[in-house]
Structures are given as C-alpha cells and as structure tokens.
C-alpha cells in the first residue's frame, strides 16, 4: 500500500482510555478525491477516529498521515485545520450567539492571526464568498439572525457551510442528517455529492437510506477496527456486519 496518492492513511492505530480500547489496530486508507461512508454501531470508534485525525486525541500507537506525507500525530487541532482538514461534529456545533453570516466569516479560509482579525475590514471577495455559501446552504434569508434561532437541520447545514468556507482538502462529516426530514436528508446527500466533486470526504452516518443515496464505498467499524469494507451491498450482506450492526 503506497501512501502517495492517499489523502488519509491510518495504519495500526490504537488508543485506549483507562484500559478501554476505543480504537484497536485500525487501518484505513482514503484516496484523493474519494468520498467514503463509515458505519458501525455505537462505541465502534467512529468519533474517536475523527478525534485522532483532527488532533484532538493522540493515538497510543500507529501511523496517521495526511496528504501522503504529513504526520498528523505531530500536530494539534488548529494546525491540522489549517493544513486542510475540516470537521463537522455529531452534535451540530455552531456559534449560537453569532449571526449566520458571522459564523461563516469566522470560518472563511485565510489568515488565522490575532492582529489581522483585530483590524479586519471585510473585502468584496469575502462578501462574495459568503453570499455563495449562503446560497448553497439556503440560509441567505436568515444571514443576520443569530444561529441559536435556526432549526436543527439548518444548524447542520450551517455547519456544512462553515466547512465549505474553510475550503479544506478533506472533510470529516459526523452524522450530517441526524434529526433531518426525508427531504432535508435527500438535499444533504445531493450537497455532499456536490462537495465530493472537488474534495475528499469521510461521512459517518447511521441512516442507511442516506448512505445508499451517497452511493460510495462503505467501511464498517466494530470495536475499534475495520469489520468490513466495500460497496454498500457487499458490506450489508456480510454476515458479521449483519450480526453486530444491521441486525437480522
């Protein structure tokens, strides 16, 4: 397995919390431009895997490489974010007291130093970019409202919008359609497929209809390691997957 050409490369990663092995010898490879869906029961290590990739948790052992050569275990969250990994949390996490527009403003790709932020004047380019994203996530009408007032689904979309504003190379999207209506779910799948045209994406999701909608390669995690990998049909017919996750 060659690392070059991969956007994300995990090999033999393990991490334990007070004896509980949340991730156990996990290996996972994502090619540039690929979109991957990750499924698995609660406690399978999906969120912990994202924590490791984004620098929140340091693995006890194993290799984590980004973009073929960057060792992610040596960097913290902010550095990793600046390298081009964006993350959407399981529970939508937006800045509730800020307006929708300000949420996007703070996410816009660009300098992340204090003094430029202190003396920041909004530019035409930034305004245009925000307008574009607001269009994509369909929140243009609510741009000046505090994010706290948005519905659950709208917060999910705003967070995806924040990811877009960040313009990362790799997006980690944790349960993007939880709490969404069917129509919203369908829209989200379409949006993610659009994003995947130009970005590498990992989507964690429980909603099998949504995963089918995405139509991408699926990895099923169980007890901290890969149980099965392949097309959704392949994975969902795997005996062990049926046993631990889908149920008979």
């Amino acid at each position, binding site marked *: 397995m060659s690392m070059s050409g991969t956007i994300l490369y995990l090999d033999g990663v393990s991490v334990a*919390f007070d004896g509980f092995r949340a991730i156990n010898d996990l290996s996972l490879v994502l090619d540039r431009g690929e979109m991957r869906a990750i499924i698995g029961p609660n406690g399978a290590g999906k*969120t912990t895997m994202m*924590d490791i990739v984004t620098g929140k948790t340091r693995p006890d052992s194993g290799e984590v490489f980004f973009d073929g050569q960057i060792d992610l275990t040596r960097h913290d969250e902010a550095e990793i974010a600046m390298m081009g990994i964006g993350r959407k949390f399981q529970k939508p996490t937006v800045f509730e007291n800020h307006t929708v527009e300000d949420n996007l403003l703070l996410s816009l790709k660009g300098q992340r130093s204090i003094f430029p932020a202190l003396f920041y004047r909004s530019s035409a380019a930034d305004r245009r970019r925000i307008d574009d994203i607001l269009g994509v996530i369909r929140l243009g009408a609510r741009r000046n409202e505090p994010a706290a007032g948005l519905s659950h689904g709208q917060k999910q979309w705003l967070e995806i919008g924040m990811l877009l504003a960040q313009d990362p190379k790799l997006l980690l999207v944790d349960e993007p359609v939880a709490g969404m209506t069917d129509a919203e779910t369908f829209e989200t799948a379409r949006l993610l497929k659009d994003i995947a045209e130009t970005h590498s994406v990992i989507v964690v999701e429980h909603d099998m209809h949504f995963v089918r909608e995405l139509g991408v390669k699926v990895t099923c995690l169980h007890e901290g390691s890969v149980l099965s990998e392949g097309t959704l049909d392949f994975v969902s017919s795997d005996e062990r997957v049926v046993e631990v996750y889908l149920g008979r």
Partner: protein
Amino acid sequence: MQFVRGLVLAIAVICASLPSLAHADEAGLRALLTRLATTTNFQETESVVRDLAATGEPAVERILSALADGNLYVRKSDQGVFTGKEDGQTLSLSDPLDGTAAGTAAKADIVKVKVNNALRRTIRDVMGGLTLGSADPTVRLSAASTMLKRPDKTALPALDAAIAGETDATVKAALAQARAAAVLVSDLGEAEKRAAIAVLANRGDSDALAQLTAFQAASTGALAETAARSVAQIETSMAAWQVAQNVWYGISLGSVLLLAAIGLAITFGVMGVINMAHGEMVMLGAYTTFVVQQAIRAFAPDLFDWSLAIALPAAFLVAGGVGLAIERGMIRFLYGRPLETLLATWGVSLILQQAVRTIFGPTNQEVGAPSWMAGAFQLGQLTITWSRLWIVLFCLAVFLLLVFIMKRTSWGLRMRAVTQNRRMAASMGIRTPWVDAFTFALGSGIAGIAGVALSQIDNVSPNFGQGYIIDSFMVVVFGGVGNLWGTFIGAMTLGVLNKFLEPYAGAVLGKILVLVLIILFIQKRPRGLFALKGRAVEA
C-alpha cells in the same frame, strides 16, 4: 574556682547520700543569708551564692531559685531576708529556709536582692551541681544535661559518685554522658577519652555534637580523628532525624490539608462545582465544638474529656445540614454553571462569616483541649505532640471511612457513577439530584468534623475557614478529581513539600514557591495527578 565547684558537687553528692548531716548547719546558712542582705554589688552577691552552694544544704536550692527568679527580699527594718510573693500592694513573706509564712510587708518596706544575667548563670551552674543529689529523678536528669552542656573536669568525682548511687537507668545514662563530656575536658588518658567519645557519639544529639566538635578542635592526632569520625557520624544521624522531623511535620500539615480538602474533593468530583463556602463549613464545625464545650463546662464538667467525641456528630450534623440547605436552596438551580456556583457559594461564605461574627463576636474563641491531647512524647530525637498525632490518626480514620463509603456502599457506587458519567448514570435510573444533595451534605459534614479537629490547633474566629480554603483548592487541583487517593497523595505531597522548603526559603516564601509549583504543575497536568480520562470527561 573550679576547685570550689568540684567541692560543691562532692559535698552535694555526699549530702544527698547522707541527708541527716544537712540539718546541722542551719546556723551557718542563716549567717550567709544575713550577708546577702548587706551585699552592695553583684560580685559580693556572687561570692555569697558560691558560699551558699558550698554548704550543700538542700534548702539552698530554694534560696537560690528564689534569688534567680527575683523573689528574694530584704526587710529594711531588720535586714531580715525572706522570699516574697507579690499580693497587690503588699508582699506575703516566708522564711527562705523552711518556707514557713512570715507575715506580710508593704512594698515600700522591703528591697529586692538584685540579680543580673551573669549572676543568674552562676546560680544555674551551681544549682546544676546541687540538684544532682535531688530526690526527684527529673531534677537529677536536668542537672545531668546542664552539666553535659557546660562540662567541668573538677566535677568528675561528684559525677562518679552520682553514677554509682544512681538507680534510674535514664538518669544514669545521662550522668554517664555528662561524665564523658567532663572527661573530654580533663587531663585523663587517651583510652578514657576514646571511651568518652564513644559515649557521646552514642547520644548523638546537638549537645553531644557541640562537645565533640569543641574537643576535636582542641586536640590532635588519633584522638582528633576519632572525634572527627564521631562528629561526622552524629551529623549524618542528625541529618536523618532532621529529615524524619520534616517528614513528620509534613505529614502533620498534610493531614490538616487533607481534612480541610477532602470534603471539597468529593463535591468537586461528583458535582463539578467548587464550594467557596467550604471553609465556612470547617468554621461551623469549630464553632460547634466551642458551643459543645461551653455547654459541657456549664452542665457536666466531668465530661470535658469527651467534649470532642460529642462535638464530632454535632459538627457533622450542623455543617451537613447547612450544606444540604445550600444545595437544595441554591446550587441545584445553578446546575451546569460551575462558575456561577462558585460566585453564589462565595456569597454564602460571606453571609456565614458575618452571621458567626454577629452571634459570637469577632474575637477568637477559646476551645479547650481534653487532657489526653495535651503534652508530647519523645521518639528518638523527635518531639511529637499528642494533639498532632491525634489529628493525623483522626484524619486517616476519616479518609478510610470515606474510602469505605465510596467503594463499598451503594451510595458510594452511585456517587462514583455520577462522577464518571452524569448523563449515563441518570439514564440508568440513578436519581442524580439526590446524589448531588447527599454528596454536598456529606462533603459539608466532613468539613464540619474537620473543623472539630482543626479547632485544636488554630484560633477559632469567624475567619477560621478562610485560612484553609486556598490550600484546600490547591490540594484538590493538584490531586485531581474523582479519586480520593489523589486527594490523599496531593495533600501529603503538598504538606511534606511545604515543610521541606521551609528551612531553605522561610515559611512565607516556601508557601509562595509551592503555589508557583502548583500553577506550573497544572499546566502540565491540567486535571491533576489522578485524572479521569476518556470522552465522557472531555465532553
């Protein structure tokens, strides 16, 4: 001079062994006393003192100690010498020889026999010799230690005689050591001196060290080397005792810190809130002790030795009850807002302080110690006071009881469950509000009984708790939450560290250093020594 002193000792020893002889010389003593009335300067007084001592009479001891204490008076009218006891404007006089009362006198009618420091020293020296023959072993012991500190080769015969006649083993050993010190300053042979060095080396304290160092400086050759070896040996052992003493003081301070902090650790661990009024719970415990003792003094003075045992449950109930009221009345409305809880409990602390100040007044209250907590005992070169020892033992008992509650009871199980994952515990059917209330009451109650113990070593005032609160925080922060052993190790480490820094940096600077170290430490381990890990904690 030296001869005279030696003679005094010899006579003293003889007198002690032959008490019947002593009374024969009362007339001589009276004559000396009248000389005391006519002295005009300190030299003269000193010579009378020496002559008095030379008589070797046991009664001389009373005269000399009265003189040293400034209680010896001359009546102007007849130049009679008396010991006097001040009683308002008059003095009640008594005969200096046999102690019988001799009426009173107005202050204007008598003069004090003046003494200065040099004279007092002389008196102490000659009395050291006199008291070798005392019937009281503790007096003999102190005489021996005086003679060790100021060795005198002419005292050797007296010491030899005293050793031969001594029956008390401790006193005998002390006398032998005093003799060894005297040998070192005498002209005796090398073998004797070598033996003396060994005796002193065996004693091994700072007095022995002083004698040996002086001897080493004054002598040459093989003896000096032997002495040097013994000096080194004593220094090593003294350094070890010094370490032992620091550790003991550290454990003692650590116990105090643990007592003050452990209730805080429980509430912080389980509820994630800092109770700024925790110090006031300790204060309430101390005041409960005071009230209980007042009641006992008034109604059942015989029970005084039991006052602390009675105060313990009372303090637990008072502080625990107030804690419960705070939790039910205030903290439960602030759940999930730890910083606001901190502020609100600070408000409670101000109110409790002022309430106690209004009721009991701002001054320190007298909390007495039962007889079994008074005094001290000697362990090697360590002096251990009973009160400290009891506090250490009490602290351990409280700690072990809490460990038991946490590990072996269903309440403890629930508390641990809530500590680790509140939401999960709630969904498993644990009534987290009850656990919170119980925990807070328990933590406050523990603070209350800590107050009972701490009232024994600190001034009980409305600010009592404030002195402990920051240290308690430091212990909790250092030890980590959710783990009683962390608190234990945190408290002991901080206590010992404090006491080891003190000799080098002084008490205040030592404390500052400890604070700075903790501030630096928490940068490395933001959640303390023993932190829970995992996603639930970070969430």
